[in-house]
Each structure stands twice: as structure tokens, then as C-alpha cells.
């Protein structure tokens, strides 16, 4: 899923046009003049109510300014629906706003109540029960109940629907795998109504501790609308859209804009100050000028954007918000079944020959932190210091390890190829060149580079057996639990490093509900992974954001780890940031382009 996040700012390989930024600078100056003229029309709406009946906080702009414009790059994207359970990878901009999930996430990544007020695990640990708040109404007048969640999850397992994220619940919800394969009807999956229509029971395949975290992805479709239309695409048509969230669809044009306006029938507990959303869709091109000319209210920036923005009077003093978003790890993987990568000493030699600090300082700073393991510090159960001895930068150790492996000074080392695909957010092109140059220079080996287009890269990587000997790739989390990210390296997973001890640790960790015991288990797993080096961990990506100076609220404030800006999962129904963002009265100080007919 994380890759979706990167794609919003990722571009077609080498088609990024950062140079245009100054262009925007010129246009921005012209617009700034226009902005000055209307400056005395300061808009203040503190104390007044927006269309959802929310009293606007002090310092906020008037109610008609309370909308939020985001940019989306359609390059490499496919826009098919607005709901997670219709499609995950082909969701259009501003998806998942027409519902209330069972649970939500706050900016400290803690699970907080959503539609469910509380939940508990059964004493046999084989099921979880969620209690839904009564009285939340859909816009068609029906009440939100357990039936909506049940129908939605059944729909997701339907082979005819062919949902693109069905791996997520496979092996988690009872009978889900069998239903997807068409072996049992979808009515047999382990999601049922409890004692009343407000009680939802999820039966699991075994004792699973992280169900509340995973239940972030319970963004329901309306059972009535789903049955009536046969699919979730009713939500891309303003006349058939059924919502119990704060927004409703008012325009859907997947080549230009998606507009959400306030759902005046909203009866849920989480009404936001921002009551209109605009998703602007661009077919590539540089985003920075669009931000500078006030077309959009926020921007996800690349390391290069920062270099350019520093030379522009409008952006150079703007605060850069940084957070790990989906806690991406960028790493080099090996095909450990093939020589020379089947030799653990060779892998360890390369692991000790990565000058992370210099690399990050020159190519990525401040939008990355060095990675010594799979999990980003701050992510549940992540450790760092215990891993450093196995992968710190130590050229001498690297050389002696390579000599021990039988390749003194790289003598006799076969020529190998590192495959990669271009991604502007992580400056991949420069990073892979810096990595290989260091290995080749210090270890005397010959690592060559091969750029592939993204589809080819993943197809060849995911083939069983894999067709790539070595590649540079990322993974981002799907939900907040170590079991999610660490399972990428379990046997039969994404890569072909199979280790019984590691598998055993993961199985033990998933079933353990005592936090400190889980920590011990996952620490061992992380140490084993870094020490065996089936992958070389290079950096954890930080996402950088600009918000126009009038975007304010607690949603942007620093969290417990010191990261600010809107945290993962973003400005969605699954996050409490929705309620904590507003447009402030200094909106006249920036050339914001007025959007009409939104709120």
C-alpha cells in the first residue's frame, strides 16, 4: 500500500520536471500582487458554524474558505472507484471518505474508536467483538449496523468481485482464503453479527493479537446500496453516492477533478471544520509551481524540490513538515539461492560497506534516516542499536569478510547486476549509483546497474523463482504491528530467504498478547534478519510536506516521535486528523486560488 503513497508524488521514470518550479515562481509573483489587493478582505469565521454544524475554532477563516485542495499525479495510476473494498490499488483521489471505519488512528499511531466505541478479544482468543455506536445514519436514511461491515467483507471475498487486496484478510478471518478460492460461499467467512445489530464478531483462523490494528481497514460500503447496485462503484456517481461520513460526492472526473461537498445529513461523532475537499488530478508535470501559485493547499516534496524551493522567495522560509508516512524501508534484496549471494559472508561484506550517512546527507537529507533493520524507529517493536553491529559502515571489516568468503580484494567475484526502477521521492537513480560505486571501489567487485520499468521490475521480482539476482526496492506498512512488516521476510514471502528460526519467531510473536514478551520475540527476529543479511537496509524514507501558511490545526502538530504534518494514513476517515485541520484567517497572505461551489 505504501507504494501508493509514493506514487502520488512518484513520476514516470525520468519525466520529472523540477526545473519548472522557478516558472511557478514568476507566476506566483504576479498572483501575489493580486493577493495584496484583496488583503483587506480578511476572512474571519471564528465562532461561526460550517455546513456540518461545526463551530469553527478561533483564528479560522470564514466558513466559505473551509475547503482543502490536494494534488494527485495520475501518472502510473488507475482511477476506478472511491472505496477501499471496491479496489485498493485503483482508488481515485479523495477515496474512503464516505464511511466510518470501526477504529481510527491518531497522530501517535494509536488505535482510537471509530464507529466502534469499544472492543474485546474472546477468552479462547479466537474471536474479537466490536460494539458499534448506535444512531449513525447513512445518507439514504438507513442506520449503520454490523450488517454493513459483514456485507462489505463478504463482498471483498467474492471471487466474482476479484478484490485486489484479498491477501490482507487471507489467513486472518476464518474461511476467508477458502471463500476467495471459491471453495465455500462468502456467507461462511468468520464475520458475523453478535448479540444485537450493533455487535460485530470477527472469528480468526487462530489467536491473532493485532486484529484492532488491522481493523483500520474496515471502511464499510452501505449494505443496502451494495445489494441494490451489485458493486461499490455506486459511489463514483453523485446521484447514487451513499455516505455516512462527513462528505458526499459532488463531482467525479477521473481525468481532472474530484470534488466532495459536505454531507448535510451527517450524524456521526467526528464532524470536521473542513467541509469541502478538492482533488486536482494532473497528468505528470512538476507540482511545486502549482503549490506556489496557490492551485493546491499542500505538496509532498522530493529532496530535489527542497533544493529548488530554497532558492525561491515564496517557499524558502516555509516550514517543512516531515513524517515517516507509511514507514517505508528502502533496501537491496538478494536472490540468496544463487552464487555469490548464497554465501552469508558476501552479503555481510556488502552490508558493512554502505556509507549511509554520506549518502543521505548528499542525496536525500533531510528526508531520510539511516536504516539498520527493516523497521523504522517509532514503528511498533522497532529496535535500532542492537542491529548496528551487524551492518555499520566498516570498510575494513567488509574487506575481510569478502576475503573470508573466498574473494580477497574482490578477486574472482562474478559480475553481478542490481536492478532498480526510478522513483523521484527516494532519488533512486542517484542512490543506486552511490551504493554501487562504493562497493565497486572498496571491495573491488563489479556491480552493474539495470534500470527496469516498474511493471517489469515487480513482475520479475515476484516471479517464483525470482528473476532478479539483486534489486533495490521498498516496502511500506499496511497496519501498525511488527507482524505486518516483518512477515515480508518469512518463508515463501516476498523474497526467497527461508529461515525456520525466523518463521518460528514470527508465529510466536503473532500469538503473544503480552507486550514485553512480544518485544523480546520481535527484537530477536530483527537481529536475526539484519545479521543474516538477506537484504541490505539503506534508509527509512521521511515524507516532506509543505502546507500553505493558512493551513492550521493539531493535525499538523508534532507527535510523540517529533514528526509533524498529517500522519499516516492521511486526511481520511481512518484518521482523526480530519477533525483537526482548518483554514486560518491569514488566508489572504498567500495567492490561494478560490474554489467555488465546494462548500
Amino acid at each position, binding site marked *: 500500500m505504501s507504494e501508493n503513497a509514493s506514487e502520488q508524488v512518484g513520476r514516470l521514470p525520468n519525466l520529472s520536471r523540477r526545473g519548472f518550479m522557478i516558472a511557478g515562481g514568476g507566476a506566483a509573483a504576479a498572483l501575489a500582487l493580486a493577493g495584496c489587493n484583496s488583503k483587506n478582505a480578511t476572512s474571519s469565521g471564528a465562532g461561526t458554524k460550517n455546513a456540518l454544524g461545526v463551530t469553527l475554532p478561533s483564528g479560522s477563516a470564514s466558513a466559505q474558505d473551509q475547503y482543502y485542495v490536494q494534488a494527485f499525479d495520475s501518472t502510473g495510476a488507475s482511477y476506478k472507484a472511491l472505496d477501499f473494498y471496491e479496489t485498493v490499488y485503483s482508488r481515485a483521489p479523495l477515496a474512503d471518505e464516505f464511511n466510518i471505519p470501526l477504529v481510527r488512528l491518531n497522530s501517535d499511531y494509536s488505535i482510537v474508536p471509530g464507529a466502534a466505541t469499544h472492543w474485546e478479544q474472546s477468552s479462547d482468543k479466537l474471536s474479537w467483538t466490536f460494539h458499534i455506536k448506535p444512531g449513525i445514519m447513512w445518507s439514504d436514511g438507513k442506520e449503520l449496523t454490523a450488517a454493513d461491515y459483514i456485507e462489505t467483507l463478504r463482498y471483498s471475498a467474492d471471487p466474482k468481485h476479484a478484490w485486489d487486496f484479498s491477501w490482507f484478510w487471507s489467513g486472518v478471518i476464518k474461511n476467508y482464503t477458502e471463500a476467495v478460492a471459491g471453495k465455500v460461499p462468502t456467507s461462511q467467512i468468520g464475520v458475523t453479527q453478535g448479540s444485537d445489530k450493533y455487535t460485530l464478531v470477527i472469528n480468526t483462523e487462530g489467536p491473532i493479537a493485532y486484529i484492532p490494528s488491522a481493523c483500520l481497514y474496515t471502511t464499510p460500503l452501505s449494505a443496502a446500496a451494495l445489494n441494490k447496485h451489485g458493486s461499490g462503484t455506486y459511489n463514483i456517481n453523485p446521484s447514487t453516492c451513499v455516505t455516512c461520513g462527513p462528505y458526499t460526492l459532488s463531482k467525479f472526473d477521473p481525468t481532472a477533478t474530484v470534488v466532495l461537498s459536505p454531507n448535510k445529513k451527517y450524524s456521526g461523532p467526528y464532524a470536521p471544520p473542513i467541509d469541502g475537499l478538492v482533488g486536482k488530478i494532473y497528468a505528470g508535470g512538476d507540482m511545486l509551481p502549482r503549490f506556489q501559485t496557490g492551485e493546491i493547499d499542500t505538496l509532498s516534496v522530493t529532496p530535489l524540490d527542497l533544493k529548488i524551493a530554497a532558492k525561491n522567495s515564496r517557499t524558502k522560509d516555509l516550514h517543512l513538515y516531515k513524517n515517516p508516512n507509511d514507514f517505508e524501508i528502502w533496501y537491496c534484496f538478494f536472490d540468496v539461492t544463487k552464487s555469490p549471494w548464497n554465501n552469508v559472508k558476501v552479503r555481510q561484506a556488502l552490508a558493512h560497506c554502505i556509507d549511509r550517512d554520506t549518502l543521505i546527507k548528499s542525496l536525500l537529507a533531510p528526508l531520510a534516516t539511516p536504516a539498520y533493520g527493516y523497521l523504522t524507529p517509532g514503528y511498533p517493536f522497532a529496535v535500532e542499536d542492537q542491529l548496528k553491529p551487524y551492518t555499520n559502515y566498516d570498510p575494513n571489516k567488509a574487506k575481510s569478510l569478502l576475503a573470508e568468503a573466498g574473494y580477497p580484494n574482490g578477486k574472482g567475484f562474478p559480475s553481478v547486476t542490481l536492478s532498480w526502477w526510478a522513483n523521484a521521492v527516494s532519488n533512486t537513480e542517484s542512490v543506486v549509483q552511490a551504493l554501487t560505486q562504493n562497493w565497486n571501489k572498496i571491495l573491488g567487485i563489479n556491480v552493474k546497474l*539495470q534500470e527496469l520499468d516498474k*511493471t517489469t521490475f515487480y513482475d520479475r521480482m515476484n516471479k517464483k523463482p525470482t528473476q532478479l539476482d539483486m534489486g533495490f526496492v521498498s516496502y511500506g506498512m499496511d497496519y501498525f504491528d511488527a507482524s505486518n512488516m516483518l512477515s515480508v521476510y518469512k518463508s515463501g514471502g516476498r523474497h526467497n530467504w527461508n529461515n525456520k528460526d525466523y518463521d518460528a519467531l514470527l508465529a510466536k510473536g503473532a500469538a503473544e498478547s503480552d507486550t514485553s514478551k512480544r518485544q523480546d520475540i520481535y527484537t530477536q527476529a530483527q537481529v536475526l534478519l539484519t545479521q543474516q543479511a538477506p537484504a541490505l537496509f539503506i534508509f527509512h524514507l521521511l515524507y516532506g510536506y509543505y502546507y500553505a501558511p493558512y493551513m492550521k490545526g493539531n493535525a499538523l502538530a508534532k507527535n510523540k516521535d517529533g514528526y509533524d504534518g498529517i500522519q499516516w494514513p492521511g486526511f481520511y476517515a481512518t484518521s482523526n486528523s480530519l477533525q483537526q485541520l482548518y483554514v486560518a484567517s491569514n488566508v489572504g497572505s498567500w495567492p490561494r486560488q478560490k474554489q467555488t461551489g465546494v462548500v
Partner: protein
Amino acid sequence: MSALQARITARRSKFTAKSSSSFWHAAWYRYKQNKLALVSGVIAILILLVAIFAPLIAPYSYATQDLSQSLAGPSLKHLLGTDQLGRDLLSRAIYGARTSMAIAIGATLLGALIGIPIGIAAGWFGGITDFITLRAFEVFTMVPQILMALLLIALFGGGVLKLILFLGVTAWVGFGRLARAQYLALRDRDFVIAAKAMGVPTRRIVTVHVLPSAMGPMIVFFVQQIPATIFTAAGFSFLGLGVQDPLADWGKMINDGEQYLSVSLMVALLPILCIAVATLTFSFAGDGLRDALDPTSR
């Protein structure tokens, strides 16, 4: 372009038919008279020499990085500054000449080697051979080039050799059309009919008797194709296809560098200048060559 060439040359081949050392002598004399062509020819040869002797001329390797010198301005150590990985720009421009010229000349040569025999066969034999060849020309012209390139590179991978292969396979149509038109016009000339009547074997007529007459226009077309191919190759590099890092190539350098324009002017400007000079000199040299080999044109 080829069609015009073909028409003009077909009409004029009677001049070149009297191929002899005096013809080439006269051509060289005419070429020398054209100052622009002369200067361009000299620069073009200089570019080729730089390309051939790149390792001897360049102060650094194209791959040598110094991350602490990222995007540094011109200095004594790096005369034209460095790129984002701290690599010497002058050295990369010099090695870039090597890659770009290898691709341009290699692909054009390949196009000629494929296209000319096919064109000759079509023009000489006519009939069904000609018909099929013409349809092949049409199929190859109708293929959207970039779409096709992306699919082929996804299938076979990138790299300089594969780029040359792809561009060559695309370039053959031009040579094919030219050769076809030439032989179509030449096969009914008196000296050919005479040779046939004397019982000279076909293979000998085609190669020894007719080829020298058709040679001039083909050489001209070859030289004129080089700048066109530099262009196309740069476009592919612009899309991130073909040349693999860390190899230097002008098109790739434009693509990488142009986003840094507001950060470091030289990174963007240097490869643009290189491409401009190379295309211009080869174009002028090609025009001069055409005028020299074709006395009726001006």
C-alpha cells in the same frame, strides 16, 4: 526525406553513373568551396576523435563520484563543475560524445546494412518482392515508435547495444526506400541493359555496375541520418530508456541535468550545447556533401 532524395538522385544518377576518380576529385573540390560545410566537417571529425580517444582526453572517469562535491561550480579541479553525484561534468561530456556517437553511427550503419540490400532487391526485381517490401515499409512506418520501444525494452532490457539494435531496425526503412527508388530508376538505364545483353551475371550487375552509381546519395543520406539519430536517441534517454547508469550519454545527461537548471546551470546547459553542436555540424556537413556529390544542386 528519403523520398525526395530518391527522386532527385534517381533523376541525377546519370551524372554519377560516370563514376571515376575524377568525379570524387571534383566532389572534394566542390566541398572545399563550401566554407560552412568545411568547418562543420572539421568539427564533426573532431567530435569523432574526442569520442574515440575519450579515455585519453577526459581528466576523470565518467563514473568517479565525490559526494562531498555534489553540484559544485567550475573550479580548477573540475573545470566545468560537477553533477549531483559529484562527477566531473567535462569528463562526462567527453565520454558522452563516445556513447552518443556510437549509438548514432552504429544505429545508422545497422539501418543501412539492413535497408540497402532489401531496397535493392525490391527495386531490382520488382513484382511480388517489391510489393511485399513496400508493405513491410508501411508496417514499420505505422508502428508508434515510442510505444514499440517501451515494449521491446521491457521485453529484452536496455543497454547501448540494444538501443543501437532498436534504432537500427527502425532506421532501415529510410535506406530501404532510397535504395529501392535508385535501383528502380537505374535498372532500365542503357549501361545496365547493355551489361545484361552482354550476359553479365545479375549479381555482378547489381554490385559492380549499378552500386557505384547509387553510392553517392546513400552516403549523403547516411551522414544526414546521424543528427536525426542523435535526436531520437536523446529522446529515448529522456524517457529513461536505453543507456544504463553510470555510463554518460548526452541525451541522458540532458534528462538528468535539466531538472537541476535552477540549482546548477552547467549541469543542464552543457549536454544541451553538446547535442546542438553535434547535430548542427553533422547537418551542415551532410548538406555540403550532398551539394558536392550532386553537381546540379546548389
